């Protein structure tokens, strides 16, 4: 569907380096990375708004590298909605129809379908200024989809929204993707959004692609420290490996899968680590005594830091469990995790 080959871009203060990427037909593909990683630049390059220095971009087999934006048939939805402020909602949505030679009846049919799907038919005669964030984003989606682009590019469409609208738009994106048979390529800095929406994705950092694959794989098996950090693997340790086990500062950690020769690190998700009182009937593998050094509230969960020897494990514990087990700073506890939760790279 979208194929990017050997793409290089030099801007005044930023570079995209050797990007290779392939997005399948009708896929919901997520381009992830921290702020400033180059996600938006890549998106605007696909849209034809930033010229590539070298490399080629194909959309549905067609080489679009030298085509201007208006000939590429890509839809664009920005974080700040970018609705035309001087046009009413109806005029915003139907803006693109005239440039595609779409007959009036067909245009009206599409308009009706999209406004029903997105539940915005009551807004058509209002100006964008008076809409809520969620309404604006739904209008922006309808405007992009009415011309049936080959691919819809979404630049952090959820980031500027209040949490209650965010869920609404997330659901709208899911519905639209299912019902419109369009390839979605979305940019986000929030891994949670990727988990909720996408099938596959790529992590980009400092202008280069770090990892491409199924979202679940990236989540469980990051290939580098920056990806591990991005997907929230807060327990990241440099390790030496011996007989299929890892050693981190004198602590021996069992692995389920034998590490490969080039592996240097292990990583464990904080939600995979359990914190128990100091009295377990049996001592399973990967159980270590330690001291609670800090508790940080994340709302419904707490991040608990447990120091075992010189290693600090970070675990996510629900509030209820925290209260039941009377976990507090300075308490001696046992941390444990399944060898299957330990990922080496």
């Amino acid at each position: 569907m979208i194929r990017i080959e050997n793409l290089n871009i030099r801007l005044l203060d930023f570079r995209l380096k050797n990007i290779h990427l392939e997005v399948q037909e009708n896929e919901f593909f997520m381009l992830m990375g921290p702020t400033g990683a180059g996600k938006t630049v890549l998106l605007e390059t696909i849209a034809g708004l930033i010229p590539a220095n070298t490399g080629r971009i194909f959309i549905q087999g067609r080489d679009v590298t030298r085509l201007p934006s208006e000939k590429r048939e890509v839809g664009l939805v920005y974080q700040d909605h970018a609705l035309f402020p001087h046009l009413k909602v109806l005029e915003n949505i139907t803006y693109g129809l005239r440039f595609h030679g779409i007959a009036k009846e067909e245009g009206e049919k599409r308009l009706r379908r999209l406004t029903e799907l997105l539940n915005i038919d009551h807004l058509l005669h209002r100006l964008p200024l008076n809409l809520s964030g969620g309404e604006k984003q739904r209008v922006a989606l309808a405007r992009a989809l009415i011309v049936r682009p080959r691919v819809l590019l979404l630049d952090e469409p959820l980031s500027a929204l209040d949490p209650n609208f965010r869920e609404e738009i997330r659901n709208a994106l899911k519905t639209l993707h299912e019902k419109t048979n369009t390839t979605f390529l979305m940019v986000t800095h929030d891994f949670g959004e990727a988990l909720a929406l996408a099938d596959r994705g790529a992590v980009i950092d400092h202008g280069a692609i770090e990892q491409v694959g199924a979202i679940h794989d990236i989540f469980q098996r990051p290939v580098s420290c920056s990806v591990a950090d991005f997907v929230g693997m807060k327990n990241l340790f440099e390790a030496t490996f011996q007989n299929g086990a890892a050693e981190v500062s004198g602590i021996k950690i069992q692995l389920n899968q034998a590490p490969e020769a080039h592996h240097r690190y292990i990583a464990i998700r904080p939600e995979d680590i359990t914190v128990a009182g100091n009295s377990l009937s049996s001592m399973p593998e990967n159980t270590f005594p330690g001291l609670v050094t800090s508790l940080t509230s994340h709302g419904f969960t707490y991040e608990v830091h447990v120091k075992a020897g010189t290693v600090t494990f970070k675990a996510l514990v629900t509030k209820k469990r925290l209260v039941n087990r009377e976990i507090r700073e300075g308490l001696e506890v046992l941390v444990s995790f399944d060898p299957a939760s330990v990922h080496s790279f």
Partner: protein
Amino acid sequence: MRKKEPFFWFTLACGTFIVAYILLPLIELITSPSISDLWESAKDKDVVGSIWLSVYTAGSAAIISFLFGTPLAYFLARHEFRGKRFLEAVIDLPIVIPHPVVGIAILGIAGKNHWIGQIISEMGIRVLGSVTGIIAVLTFVGIPFYIHSAKNGFEAVAPRLEKVSRSLGASMSSTFMRITFPLAWRSMLIGIIMCSARAISEFGAVVVVAYHPMTAPVLIYERFEGYGLKYSQPVAVWLVLVCLALFFVLRILTLRKAKDA
């Protein structure tokens, strides 16, 4: 009520002085000629002709600034490049160059000793003592004002709006006509008015290039020189009224713009 600080009274005193300093001479000017004097001068062919010439040449300068300045203003608003500050400084130069110098400089390249002047004169265009010459210097002094205002207007239009428009299939020119222009026209119009207002009041540069045909400021000067204050005042009043009309439209536009933003 809290007692006002000395600084407040100081500000008030300075402010009153400035406002009075601006308004008193203008009020004196407008009220001193009698209605019959004004009526008399309104029938004077020289007066009407010179005011018409001023309006016509200043308007032409504004239209030229609009035609040539718009693409440049748009370019400056949308692109960052090395040398941009320098280019902007060049565009601002006419504001700081002394006005008679502008006239002399223009004559320098339009004269017979310069190849550009030779080409122009071969094309049958006369600059010295002609309407063309007046429009040329007025454009020179007025164009920075148009470019500034138009550029500000374009900068206020988010580039993302244009990007979305392109992605929806609109070419660059369609995007400009349908998105950028409707959002920036007020700034462009303000620029046109500022440019005309600057041009209509020009004296120094015009008098060097063309004493005749006579624009209103030159006529005022001539009447003052030849006949004294009393005879120059009615012409001055008419010119001020034209300028005030421009100023009035400008204020309405700027206030609306501030309200919309």
